[in-house]
């Protein structure tokens, strides 16, 4: 560990994948709910929704893959603990969690290919 390692940066680094997953969930759910429920007050129509959600899913998936393959890109700016035994441990946690998150983003994103947009199931 270098002297400048930050616990906050390390925690964010470990949680990189789940944070992307959460942002993707928040973006998808909020956008979908807003457009379907209050579409007439927004400049977007439901027909744009699959494209927006698809783009969001692709961006989230790509971000996680980049984090998985190039952890330095995430860890260095965050001053995460990344050297020595603890650094290796922290990076392995980050990678495993990113992998799970990638699965979560993909599974979540699959829904839009299978379910009609804005169909209320009452």
């Amino acid at each position: 560990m270098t002297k400048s390692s930050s616990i906050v940066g390390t925690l964010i680094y470990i949680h990189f994948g789940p944070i992307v997953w959460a942002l993707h969930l928040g973006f998808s759910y909020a956008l979908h709910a807003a457009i379907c429920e209050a579409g007439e007050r927004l400049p977007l129509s439901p027909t744009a929704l699959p494209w927006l959600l698809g783009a969001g899913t692709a961006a989230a998936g790509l971000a996680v893959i980049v984090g998985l393959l190039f952890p330095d890109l995430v860890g260095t700016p965050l001053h995460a603990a990344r050297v020595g035994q603890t650094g290796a441990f922290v990076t392995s946690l980050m990678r495993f969690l990113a992998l799970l998150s990638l699965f979560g983003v993909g599974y979540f994103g699959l829904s839009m290919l299978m379910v009609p947009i804005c169909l209320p199931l009452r």
Partner: protein
Amino acid sequence: MDSPATPISPTPRPEGEREELLRIWSTPKGWRVVSAVNNTVIGLIYIGAAFLFFILAGILALVMRAQLAQGGNDLVSQELYNQLFTVHGTTMMFLFAVPAMEALGVMLLPQMLAARDLPFPRLSAFAIWAYIIGGLVFFSTIFYDLAPAGGWFMYPPLTLTEFMPGDNADFWLLGIGFIEISAIAGAVEIVVGVLKTRPPGMTLAKMPIFAWTMLIFAGMIIFAFPAVIFATILLEVERAFGWPFFTAELGGDALLWQHLFWFFGHPEVYIIFLPAAGLVSMMIPTMARTPLVGYRLIVVALIATGFFSFGLWVHHMFTTGIPGLSLGFFSAASMAVAIPSGIQVFSWIATMAAGRRRIRFTTPTLFILGFLFIFTLGGLTGVMVAMVPFDFQVHDTYFVVAHFHYVLVGGMVFPLFATFYYWAPMVSRKLLSERLGKWAFWLMFIGFNVAFFPMHITGLAGMPRRVWTYPENLGWDLLNTISTVGAFTIAAGVLVFIIDLVLNFRPSNQGAGNPWDAGTLEWLPSDVYSTRSIPHVTTRDPLWEQPNLAEEVEAGAHYLPGAPTGFRETIVTSPIEAEPQYVLQMPGNGWSQVFAAVFTAGFFLLLTIKAVVPAVISGVLAVAFCMIWVWPLDPGPGKGKVEIGAGIKLPTYFSGPQSHGWWAMVVLMLVAASLYLAYVFSYLYLWTVSPDVWAPTNAPGPPDLIYPLGTGALLLFGAGAIWLAGRLLPEPGERSLASIILLIAAGLGLVGAVALDAWGHWQTGLVPTDSAYAAMVYTATGLTGQVAAAVLLMVLFTAARLVVGRTDRERRNSFDHTALLAYYCAAQGLFGLLLIHGFPRVMG
């Protein structure tokens, strides 16, 4: 793994060290034990209280099962039955499950981390007494027809005053809201304790799994509990003052409650399960006599479960008319969360298989195997109800009752009983009986499955939950009778356990040694002061891999000789690598935290019965005792540096971002931010779902820009003034009038900002009872107002310390914590201005 450690070059142990430690850490005798703060004492009281609530809620369950044993039964009335299932669920979830886990954290963590205590012992004691008093009063409502009857989730509109008049629902809202605050106080303690009081050498990679789970548990409480606290505030304000957050015709929405409640409620399941899983991960290696297989993967699984659990709340709302695509999202997430749980189950099985010698079939092992069987079945039915079409069929039936009891009892109660048997020798000079333990296990295991497995079938046969009786000709009678027999069999098992406790549990500071030959630090020789010296740790299972560690620690060959400051103390280490940073002086036994808890409970409970004046008096007294409690807690650097062993000299005082108090403030601000985030969600949610009445067509528009601009200026003034006050803090021994004036001006500026904002809205004719929009606008002001009020109190407190010379440029923790909260208050206020004044203008 690192190679085993050699003993730290010992600092000469002071003369009469042991006697001095025993004197400093002594526990008050007799009734004065209430004033104790030591974790092994209050931890036991905490666990005892949680277990008492388990018994009480269990008795309510037996009454319900007796009522349901036959169709058409009239043992209890419908109204009483409604109260029974509400108090049963509420007590089990809020007064037993979460507190039991928090109690284990308070008791076990310092021992596992070889700390002398957690960093805020009085905060723990405050949380515990607040919980015990609040919990007992809440539970007692069942005896005088004042208990809530809206189910443990208290859905509006059923719980609005119109449909549920009287004080019953208020006891839930104020009582439980208050107890959640106590849980948050415990979470602050646990986060700072795990990250800052580990023994030297215990890096993140070497932390016991239970410490990981408690860290995640506390983190989840910090982000989940504010949502339900905010929901209870909204519902109580609607019931008490008529602000229509949940009334549809005025722009409110009953589903807002469900969103907020389940954003808390689903993570709550994992808040309960994860620490239990952590306990299992600690016990299995001991019983299998081999290190845990897949430590790293288990940590991943714990973090993933905790994090992903926040994305599942909508699966409790599948049948509320949510768009199909959203159902698809949350169905996918609900199935995905099974993966990390599966990782843990396979790691446990692999550990059992990995031992060179046969696993020991002790009572804890039996309870763990029972847990694996029951929890896995609950997980499988969880995947079933995660599928939307299936959930539509079984929603609100006994299938769901069976599912969540398999998850919660399997996932938490069985590991808890394993814990009782496994860790009892740590605090009792006698082990619990293996023979009685096995009886208890088999009765509980068989009873549980007899009670709850038939409920799957009852549910599939169409029996709805929360019915007080049912017609006799529907084919449900036999299944219900079997379930009732099973419930009483479980009770027999619990009774055997209680008999075992009475016969064999004998509290003792020294415990019964290390009877299981376990590898973790809680089994080091200890006394009331914990271990004689604080060990240097180099492995995950130090007692297995560092030969002679126990003898070295007991001989005083490791860190922290004696009590160099003359008070209770422990070593604070860095959060990642656990390098020693400073010696933390901790407060000893005292009454202020007890009275603070009593009067805080009094405030909430008196408010519930609308005794406003006594409630206010009680609230003022609570604040006064909090002030008395914290007044001596910023001792300053007067004692200089002390030697802790191995030639290391540490300061006895620390301020700034590395100090434990700073961390606690940051955690508290995260709680406040979570609360505000719940508000922002609610504001935008109501705008989304009620386009016709948000804002109502005849509602006044936002105030003139002069009001938000003036409010913003005051907020910035408050933050600026406190920053400047910090620059002007006096040197030790001196006074600074400018600093005092600036401090008070900062507090007044922040409170004034909030008042100006509210006045601006009032000037437009916006009345909070007119619409949900208006109520939401004033709620933003209220939320920032309560932070500003807290800042004002802290400002006055710090100013008083400045006046008497107890705060200065070096002795500055009180000031720093006040400044942190003031900056947060200003930031939240500015964000609120953008939302409340900006959003309506942007959206027209």
